[in-house]
């Protein structure tokens, strides 16, 4: 019984870590990127200050907005936090990850995206509708690739439960799986597209021609905007944690001992920092591409994930 309670407390702590750590990861990414571009970056705590400032600011609702506009930030934030609860960050075998599997995780993302697009269209401005239509275009191409990567993982591990799957990968030791190489590459491309980073979307711009995510949240202010930004940061961290823990699961805590948990936290911190640094490098090297090139980019991601699945079937199972 006590063990049961510990695991639930740990699950809550882990989710809280996601929520609390996401701005830090965003700050780290920004700092590394600034350093690479020979600029002095903001402090690591700057995203927290930004969120705090937004929470204190006055809330302005645009004329003619309905309840959808007001409810969307809470729905999106809630869906993303629930998604965060499913993903193992520092420990495996937590009760929350046993309740929902990785397909539900994709579902949470879809729910958040649906409300984001609705909120964008609700006000009736040109930007909101444009951003929503672009977001849905990107999403409709990214989601099949994401699911294909997920299926590759599920087929290799024999389960869609993330926690169990990671445990099986961990216990099988160092095995070079061609399917995982492809799934990793595909998932990296999908993550870039889904979290609105360069080269698909530029999160730091308010230039009307190029923006996707910013166009939809343009009308938001105050605590609504804070929730939206925070949810985007958590979503980024979920993708980073997924990639880090599925493909490099070493270090994650299997037991609930203090030492194992500390090691798990340290390992995941290092992995996330490295992954964010890698993204900063790629964002510095690449330029944003035209919106109409995005379908080809995502088509390539889908192809990679599909090849991952095929090479699993052909090379790893057969014979």
């Amino acid at each position, binding site marked *: 019984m006590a063990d049961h309670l510990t695991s639930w407390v740990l699950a809550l702590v882990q989710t809280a870590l996601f929520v609390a750590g996401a701005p830090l990861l965003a700050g780290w990414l920004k700092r590394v990127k600034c350093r690479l571009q020979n600029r002095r970056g903001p402090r690591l705590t700057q995203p927290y200050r930004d969120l705090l400032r937004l929470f204190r600011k006055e809330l302005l609702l645009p004329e003619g907005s309905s309840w959808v506009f007001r409810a969307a930030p809470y729905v999106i934030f809630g869906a993303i936090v629930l998604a965060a609860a499913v993903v193992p960050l520092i420990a495996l075998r937590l009760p929350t990850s046993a309740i929902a599997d990785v397909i539900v995780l994709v579902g949470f993302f879809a729910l958040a995206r649906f409300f984001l697009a609705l909120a964008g269209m609700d006000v009736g401005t040109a930007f909101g509708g444009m951003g929503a239509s672009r977001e849905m275009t990107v999403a409709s191409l990214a989601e099949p690739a994401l699911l294909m990567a997920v299926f590759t993982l599920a087929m290799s591990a024999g389960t869609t439960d993330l926690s169990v799957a990671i445990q099986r990968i961990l216990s*099988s030791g160092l*095995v070079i799986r061609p399917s995982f190489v*492809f799934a990793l590459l595909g998932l990296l491309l999908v993550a870039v597209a889904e979290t609105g980073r360069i080269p698909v979307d530029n999160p730091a711009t308010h230039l009307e021609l190029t923006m996707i995510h910013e166009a939809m949240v343009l009308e938001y202010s105050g605590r609504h905007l804070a929730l939206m930004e925070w949810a985007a940061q958590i979503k980024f961290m979920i993708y980073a944690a997924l990639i880090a823990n599925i493909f490099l699961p070493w270090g994650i805590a299997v037991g609930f001992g203090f030492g194992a948990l500390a090691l798990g936290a340290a390992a995941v911190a290092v992995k996330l920092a490295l992954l964010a640094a890698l993204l900063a490098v790629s964002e510095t090297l690449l330029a944003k591409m035209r919106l109409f090139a995005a*379908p080809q980019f995502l*088509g390539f991601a889908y192809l990679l994930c599909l*090849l991952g699945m*095929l090479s699993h079937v052909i*090379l*790893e199972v*057969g014979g």
Partner: protein
Amino acid sequence: MNALQGLDLTRQLILLLAALVLFSSFAMLAQSRLVGLVRVFAWQGVLLAVTTGLVAYASGHTHLYASAVLTFFLKGLLIPWILHRMVLRLGLESARESDAYRTPVQLAGAGLVVFSYYVALPVVQLSALFTRNTIAVSLAVVLLGMLLMISRHKAVSQVVGFMSIENGLFFAAVVATYGMPMVVELGVAFDVLVAAILFGVVFLQIRASIDTLDVDRLNRLSESEP
């Protein structure tokens, strides 16, 4: 997961390289610039050479080392260099194939992989070699080379597709029977080399007569037709 764990690291690496060879075929389908296409083709040759070397190491067939070295110099360096020089000489550095049907062609390629898996399945069940699973991959490389030839209009791309078919056949020989006899291998290698040089001459002839390398234009009988 289960079948893979029984293999040692070298054999796992061979499977990974086989997957990368397959990926390079898809990269060729995705590449629209001719110079890029030749570069990817060179990478496929290098990957093929490394795979052959590893198969030689894992299976203990020393004559495969010779084919690995031959493949590296011929398909990784010499033929791509000839093709690259030809592209430069014909002034096609910035030439692109049209982007139409890019994604459907790639998806058709994925379909071909599934098809070759289905076709190779009975062969795989009869074979006892540890490389047997890659037979389907080599067949897929052959079919993808054909797809490249069919879907492109420029003569240079079609030659690269043809060379890629040869890569697939060589790969099939290595993984299905640990290579052909040395005489055959040498003969085929030099045939390919001669073909690469001959194609160069043909390119020049085609261009001299119809002033383009777009082979669709060969169907037209006279200049007056639009």
